């Protein structure tokens, strides 16, 4: 949301209050005129003064309704959210709404994090057998090495151990460089954090912008109701969608809440209190 858009929106209010005071002054003039006619006992003058006062009041209401209608219209038009909050600059489809755009961007976040997780797990799954083999071969060598230290080895066994140590040194060198390569790939696979962070921040801005515009729309609609005398009953039922208390909600962001467990220990306590 750019600052110019905001000043446009608040700018719509200023002439509203300015004209209101000039309209009030017209009403005041008419009222004074009526009092003067009453005091001078001019009965036909009194009638025409009352009529003029009525007309001025009606004109005032029409003007206000007109202004509010324009304000409402503007607030609705502003909902098109053109420019300012573009989530990316590479949009080819200009007709695409910001909301669709935001959905695409969030899909992009899912894809990017998914790719990163897949790549990381590929590397881990390839690395684990290498690490396991390193561990097993060094353990086997250590057993024989200790026998050598205790001078329990005959010359044939020693020759075999000599060869195996040579092979192991080559293998451990190769394995280490393979493992570092995989660790580096894992490191690079974390680059999504920067990109997804930027995209998510832009979507947050868009949501804030929509919220601001909704508040503005509510404000203008409220003024229209007030002026036209639409009275909303306090008991008027507000339509609520019934949500099952156990419906899936996904991760809880605020684990301080009463009805939410704060972690696995809390889950275990709850389950054991239920006899688990």
């Amino acid at each position, binding site marked *: 949301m750019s600052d110019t858009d905001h000043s446009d929106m608040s700018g719509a209010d200023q002439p509203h209050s300015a004209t209101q005071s000039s309209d009030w002054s017209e009403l005041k003039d008419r009222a004074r005129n009526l009092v003067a006619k009453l005091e001078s006992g001019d009965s036909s003058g009194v009638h025409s003064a009352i009529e003029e006062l009525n007309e001025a009041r009606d004109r005032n209401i029409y003007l206000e309704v007109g202004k509010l209608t324009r304000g409402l219209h503007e607030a609705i038009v502003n909902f098109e959210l053109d420019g300012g909050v573009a989530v990316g600059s590479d949009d080819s489809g200009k007709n695409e709404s910001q909301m669709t755009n935001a959905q695409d961007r969030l899909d992009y976040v899912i894809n990017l994090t998914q790719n990163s*997780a*897949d790549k990381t797990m590929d590397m881990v799954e390839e690395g684990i057998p290498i690490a396991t083999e390193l561990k097993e071969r060094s353990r086997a060598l250590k057993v024989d090495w200790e026998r050598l230290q205790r001078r329990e080895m005959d010359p044939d066994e020693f020759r075999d151990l000599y060869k195996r140590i040579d092979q192991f040194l080559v293998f451990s060198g190769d394995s280490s460089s393979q493992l570092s390569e995989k660790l580096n790939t894992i490191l690079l696979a974390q680059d999504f954090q920067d990109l997804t962070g930027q995209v998510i921040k832009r979507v947050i801005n868009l949501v804030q912008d929509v919220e601001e515009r909704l508040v503005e729309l509510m404000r203008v609609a409220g003024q229209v109701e007030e002026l036209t005398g639409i009275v909303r009953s306090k008991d008027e039922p507000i339509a609520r969608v019934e949500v099952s208390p*156990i419906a899936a*909600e996904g*991760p809880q962001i605020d684990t301080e809440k009463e009805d*939410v*467990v704060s*972690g696995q220990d809390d889950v275990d306590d*709850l389950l054991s209190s239920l006899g688990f």
Partner: protein
Amino acid sequence: MKILIVDDFSTMRRIIKNLLRDLGFTNTAEADDGSTALPLLQNGNFDFLVTDWNMPGMTGIELLKAVRADDRLKDMPILMVTAEAKREQIVEAAQAGVNGYVVKPFTAAVLKEKIEKIFERLEG
């Protein structure tokens, strides 16, 4: 020991599969929601079910209830591994007959502990 892993995110299925392999369980299969899992369970001689809660189509709690309502499957041990963390939900899962409940994010040690506890109970 044949285990079915049900989660809509392949990443999570893969993590659980790897952790299970580390615990010595190598015979695993995967499904991405309850409605694909149920026919697999009905035809597949599975011994153990690990399921998420929040999934499109058929959720984990619905799958849990469906398994408990199925005569041939009703005794299958079920572990829920889920981000759903409301007390009411955990109570609901317990009442529906879940054997263990792990909240995400979780550690390998927690998963191991819960699985071992389930098998200890079954044997004991």
